C-alpha cells in the first residue's frame, strides 16, 4: 500500500488507488483475517458494502449492521441475501445477517456479544450529544473484544484541490491526529481498552507530516468477557428496529444436512450401481466386438468366489438378486463425501431412513434394474 497513489503535486489532485473507501474496507477484511472473529457488527453500515464483503469471510457466523437511515439499508439489503448457490451447496458454517435501524447513541441488546465492532467513517457524522453517548454504548455496553474506528484526518484536508472546512456536508467535525488520539486514549482508558493508531491513504511524497488521509484507531479490550455481565445487560429494552434478516442455509441445520446426505447417498449408490451393471454387461458382451466399453474401476462381487472372506467384508459388497441390486450402506459410507457429511454410520442410517428405499433389514439401498438399460 506504499505507493498506491498517483499524485500530481502542482495541480494538487489526490487520487487513491484503490479508492480510499476500498482501502478502508480492505483494512477491516485484513483485520478479520487476522483475528478470525465470529460475530461482527458494522455501525453506520449505510449501503452494506462492508457487510457484503465480510459475508465471504468463512470465520464469520453472525453479521449485523446498524444505521440511522433505514432507506439506504433497504435499498441495498438484498445484496446480503443468500445466493441460489448457497442453497444448492449449503456451507458448513452457519451465517445470519441482520440489519437494524437505530442510533449508535442508544443501547439495544441485539448488539451484545460481538467480537468485532467496526465504525467506519461514522463518528464525524454524530452530533455532540450523540458523540458523548457513543463511547458508553460501544465500549461500555456492547463491549466487544475489538473496536475499529476510522475518521478523516483534518490535517490532510489542505491537500485537496477544493479545500473546504469539512469533506462532506453532513460531517459535524473533522479531527486532526491529536484530537482523535486524545479522544481515543481517553475512551480506551475509561473502558479498559488498549488502542493503537494507524490509517489508510498515504500522503504524497514530501507531505508525509500530514499523516494518513483516514486515521484509524484499533481498540482491544483488556479484560475477558464474563457471561453474567453480558446476561445482566440482556434485559435492556429493545429500541432498534430490525429491517432485514437472512439466515443462510447451513449444514448445521438438520434439514439441510439431511438433504445433503440423502442426495450424496443416492448419487453414490447410483455410481456403484452403474459400475456394477457395466461390469455385468461386460461379462455378457464378452464375445461382442465393442472395444469402447471401459472397464470400471469398481469390482463388484458377482458370483463372488471368495466365500471365505470375513462377514464384515462381505457385507460391504453390493450384490444383485434377480431384478434388484442391493448396495450396502456400509459401502456407501466408505465414500469420503458421504463419510465427511455424516461423521458416523449411525447418523447416516438415521438420515436416510424413510427417504431412500432400503432392504428389509435397512442395511442396503435397493434399486430395481427394470426400465433401465433398454
Amino acid at each position, binding site marked *: 500500500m506504499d505507493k498506491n497513489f498517483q499524485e500530481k503535486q502542482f495541480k494538487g489532485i489526490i487520487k487513491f488507488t484503490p479508492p480510499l473507501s476500498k482501502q478502508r474496507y480492505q483494512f477491516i477484511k485484513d483485520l478479520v483475517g487476522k483475528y478470525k472473529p465470529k460475530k461482527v457488527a458494522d455501525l453506520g453500515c449505510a449501503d452494506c458494502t462492508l457487510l457484503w464483503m465480510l459475508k465471504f469471510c468463512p470465520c464469520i457466523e453472525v453479521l449485523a449492521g446498524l444505521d440511522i437511515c433505514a432507506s439506504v439499508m433497504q435499498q441495498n439489503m*438484498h*445484496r446480503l*441475501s443468500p445466493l441460489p448457490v448457497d*442453497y*444448492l451447496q449449503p456451507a458448513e458454517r452457519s451465517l445470519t445477517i441482520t440489519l437494524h435501524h437505530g442510533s449508535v447513541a442508544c443501547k439495544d441488546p441485539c448488539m451484545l456479544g460481538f467480537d468485532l465492532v467496526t465504525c467506519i*467513517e461514522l463518528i464525524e457524522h454524530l452530533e455532540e450529544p450523540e458523540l458523548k453517548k457513543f463511547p458508553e454504548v460501544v465500549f461500555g455496553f456492547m463491549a466487544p473484544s475489538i473496536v475499529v474506528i476510522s475518521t478523516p484526518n483534518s490535517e490532510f484536508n489542505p491537500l485537496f484541490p477544493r479545500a473546504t472546512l469539512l469533506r462532506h456536508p453532513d460531517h459535524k467535525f473533522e479531527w486532526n491526529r491529536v484530537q482523535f488520539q486524545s479522544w481515543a486514549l481517553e475512551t480506551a482508558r475509561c473502558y479498559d481498552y488498549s488502542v493503537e493508531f494507524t490509517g489508510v491513504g498515504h500522503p504524497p511524497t514530501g507531505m508525509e507530516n500530514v499523516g494518513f488521509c483516514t486515521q484509524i484507531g484499533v481498540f482491544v479490550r483488556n479484560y475477558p468477557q464474563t457471561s453474567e455481565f453480558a446476561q445482566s445487560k440482556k434485559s435492556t429494552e429493545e429500541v432498534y428496529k430490525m429491517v432485514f434478516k437472512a439466515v443462510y442455509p447451513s449444514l448445521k441445520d438438520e434439514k439441510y444436512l439431511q438433504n445433503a446426505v440423502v442426495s450424496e447417498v443416492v448419487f453414490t449408490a447410483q455410481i456403484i450401481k452403474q459400475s456394477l451393471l457395466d461390469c455385468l454387461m461386460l461379462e455378457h458382451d464378452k464375445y461382442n466386438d465393442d472395444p469402447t466399453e471401459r472397464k470400471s474401476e469398481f469390482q463388484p462381487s458377482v458370483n463372488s468366489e471368495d466365500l471365505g472372506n470375513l462377514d464384515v467384508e462381505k457385507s460391504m459388497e453390493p450384490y444383485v438378486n434377480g431384478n434388484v441390486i442391493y448396495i450396502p450402506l456400509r459401502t456407501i459410507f466408505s465414500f469420503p463425501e458421504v463419510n465427511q457429511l455424516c461423521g458416523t454410520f449411525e447418523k447416516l442410517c438415521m438420515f436416510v431412513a424413510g427417504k431412500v428405499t432400503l432392504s428389509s433389514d435397512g442395511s442396503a439401498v435397493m434399486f430395481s434394474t427394470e426400465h433401465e438399460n433398454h
Partner: protein
Amino acid sequence: MSGRARARARGRLLGQEAAIPGAGASSVQNILPSQPPSRQQLRQPCVPPSASGQPGGRGRQRSPQSAPQGPKKISQEELQISMGFQEFSISDRDVRRGDSHDLRVNTRQAMEHVKESKTGSSGSMIKLTANYFRLTSRPQWVLYQYHVGYSPEMEARRLRTALLFQHENLLGKTNAFDGSILLLPKKLKNKVTELFSRTRNGEDVKITVTLTNELPPYSPTCLQFYNIIFRRLLKMLNLQQIGRNYYNPSDPIIVPKHRLMIWPGFITSILQYEESIMLCIDVSHKVLRSETVLDSMYNLCQHVEEQRFRDVCAKELIGLVVLTKYNNKTYRVDDIDWDCNPQCTFRRADGSEISFVDYYKTQYNQVISDLNQPVLISQSRRRRGNIMPGPVVLIPELCFLTGLTAKMRNDFNVMKDLAVHTRLPPDQRQQEIGRFMDCIQRDDNVQKELQSWGLSFDSNLLSLQGRVVKAEKILQSGNAFDYNPQFADWTRETRGAPLICAKPLDNWLLMYTRRNYDSANALLQNLFKVTPSMGIRMNMATMIEVEDRTEAYLRALQQSITPDTNIVVCVLSGTQKDRYDAIKKYLCTDCPIPSQCVLARTLSKPQTVQTIATKIALQMNCKMGGELWTVEIPLKQVMIVGIDCYHDLLSGKHSVAGFVASLNQTMTRWFSRCVVQDRGQELVDGLKACLQTALREWFKWNKYLPSRIIVYRDGVGDGQLSILVNYEVPQFLDCLKSIGKDYMPRLTVIVVKKQLNTRFFMQGGRPLKNPAPGTIVDLEVTRPEWYDFFIVSHAVRNGCISPTHYNVIYDSSQLKPDHIQRLTYKLCHMYYNWSGVIRVPAPCQYAHKLAFLVGQSLHREPSLVLSDRLYYL
C-alpha cells in the same frame, strides 16, 4: 424410435435450457444472460465477472446520457421517453424487452372488418377461469418522469443513487430511479430542480432534476413501471431471482438420483388486456443442479476416451446456463478455453495484473483447488452504451449448472422423474397460484408498497367465457369417422380403414446390421400384416445386410438404389447422430429418395411391434406422397402456408426457415422448400422466393392460382412482431403483385405462438379440468390492439394444457373471425404424423419438421425433387 420420436427428442436441444416444461413447452423460458459483468479491457479481452454482488446490473456503467432535447414533435418525444424507460426496465432485469416491444405494434386498426368486433360465434359456451387477476385500482394521479443529470458526470449507478437520495426529504420515499430516470408520484415544485450533494471523497456534485414527461395512468410506460414495482414485491417475499423469474429456494424439491434440485417459482406480468389491466401469474419451475461444471467435467472424463473428451465436454456444456458461486448472475457458456487455466492472469480495472486464483481468493474468499481446469467463456449479448463488452471468463469450479443437458433431456428416466414434480395438474396449478396471491395479499410490507403506489389487485382468478366448437369428422376414403373429442385422437377409430391415397411399395430397400436382423424381419412381417387393410400394395423388400458403420450404409445405398426405388428403410442400432445425418443427407440431397430410419430397439418388444409397424407404414406412405385423411374444408381456392424457423443456438452459425404450402383443396398434399441463411442475413428474401415457387407449383396442380392465401407464421421471437408487420408482410404483397398484373389474391398472415403463460381452467366440477379440445377464447385475455384469439386444440394426458395464441397481423380476406378460427382449428387435424389433433396448424408443424431436419442434419436445402412429398416427417 421412429424418425418422429427421434426428432422430437432432439428438438429439445433448441434453447430450452433452463426451465423444464410444466406441460408442453409453454413454461420453458429462455434465460437471457444477465447484464454483462466484465469491464471493457483493451489489452486483455477476457476478464472475470466484476465484483458486483447483487442482481439488477448494479455494476453496469452507463454511457453518459445527454439531456432530452426540446420537444420537436410529440410522437418523437414519446418515443424517446419510452426508449429511455425501456432501459430502465432492462436494468431491473424484469420486463421482457421483446414483449414490451410487440405491445406497441397496433395491427388491428388497419383491419376494418374487425374494428368493431373480433369475436367468433360458433360452438357452445363454457365458463372458464384464467390465471389472471384484475388490477382493481390504480393510481389516478399522473406519474412524473424526471431526467437526472450529474455535474461532474458520475459513472456508478450506486453512487448516482446515493447522491440523489441525500435529498430524500425533497423527493419523498416513494420513487423509482434507475440511475438517470426518476419516477415520482408527486410533482416537484419546479420544472428544473438543482441539488447539491457531496461524495465521500469530498467532491461536490450538482444534480439537475428535470421534468421530462407526465405519464397518464394508462400509458404503456406506466404499465411497464407496474411490472417493476411488482418485481420488488417478489423480492420482498424472499423469492430468489434467477434469470428473469423469481423462485422460492426455501422448499426445494430434491431429485438426488440425478443430482437435480427443482425450485418452484412464478412468472408474472402486468399488461393491458382487452378490457382491463391484469396481472398474469403462472407457476414455473427452475431446475438447478447440485453439481459444478468441474464436477460434471470430471464425470465426463471418466466415461469417455481421452481423445474425445474435449469434444464431449463442448457438446455437453456449451449452450448451458451456469450460476456462479459468488454472485447472483447467470451466464451462458459459449466456449471452453482449454489453453487457459485459473493461474492465467488478467488486467484489472486499475491496471494491475492478477491471476484468477488470487482474484477469487481476495475478492470472494473462493479457493480454486484444481489449477489445471480450463476456463469457460461467455459472450455478453447486451450492449453497454455503445460498447459491446468483451467476453467473460468463468472458472468451472465456481459455476453451478442449471437446466438440463441434451443428454438428460433425451433420458426418458430423468424426464419422467422430473415430470412428477413439474407437471402440475390443473387443480394443483390453480392452488399454487391462489396461494401465491394470498401471500401477496397478506404480507404487510408488500401491501404497504402497493398502497404507496395506489395499486391493488382482485383476489380471485378471472372468470371468462369460452366456446367449444364441434369436433370434426375425419374423412378417409368415403368413410366419415367420429372420435371422442375429449381425447382428440382417432387412432383406434380409423384403424384398418383404407387411406385416401396409398402409394405402393413395389420396389423398396430394407437395410440392417446382422445384429438387427430379427428387428428388421419383425418389421417386415408386421408391415405385411398391416398394409393390406390400408390399401398399400407391398412387395417383398430388397433386404440388405450392412456392417455397423456409417460408410457401409452409404456404400450400400449407392450400390442398391435404382430409379425405381420407392423408399429406403434403415434399421439403426443406436442413436448415433452422425450416421442418421449422413443417411439423410445422402437421401435428401445427393440421391433424392424418401427414407425411413427406425431404431432396432423400438422394434424389439413383440407386444408393441405391430402398433409400431402400423405407424411406420403410415409415415412411409406420407413420405412417398400418399394421403391419409382429411377434414371438411369449406373454403375454396385457398392456399395455406406454414412457416417455422430453426435456429442453431449451439454453433450460432445458421438459421433455417421451413416453408410449406398446400397444393390441393383437401389440404392433403403439401409443397415444401426451405431457406438456409447465415447469421445476419434477412430471412424474408428467401421466403419471397419460396412463395413464388409455391404459387407456380399450385398452378401446375390446379390450373389456376389461389384466390386466397393464408400464412401461419410460427417461430417469431419476442420483439420481432414489428419486423413482420413492417417488412415481411409488405414483401409477401410485393411478391404476389409480381405474379401477374391482374392477380389480386386476398392475403391473411397469422402469427402462431405456443410458449405462453396463459392457462385456462374449466369451471365447475372437482378436481378442476383442462378445457376440452376445440376451446376458443377471443375476449378478456386478448389484446385490444390486436386481432387475436386462443385455441386449445389438443389434449394432454397429465398436467395443464397450454393454449396456442393466434395473432392475425394482416388480413385482406374479409373472412369473419369465426371462419378464421374454425379453419385454424381444422388445420390442427391435418398433421399426418399424429392421428389426433395437435397444438398448431399442420403446416406449421410440417414447416417445423422440415426446418429441424435441415438445421440438424442436412445443413443445406434438400433436393426439390422431393418437394411435393412429406419426406421430412
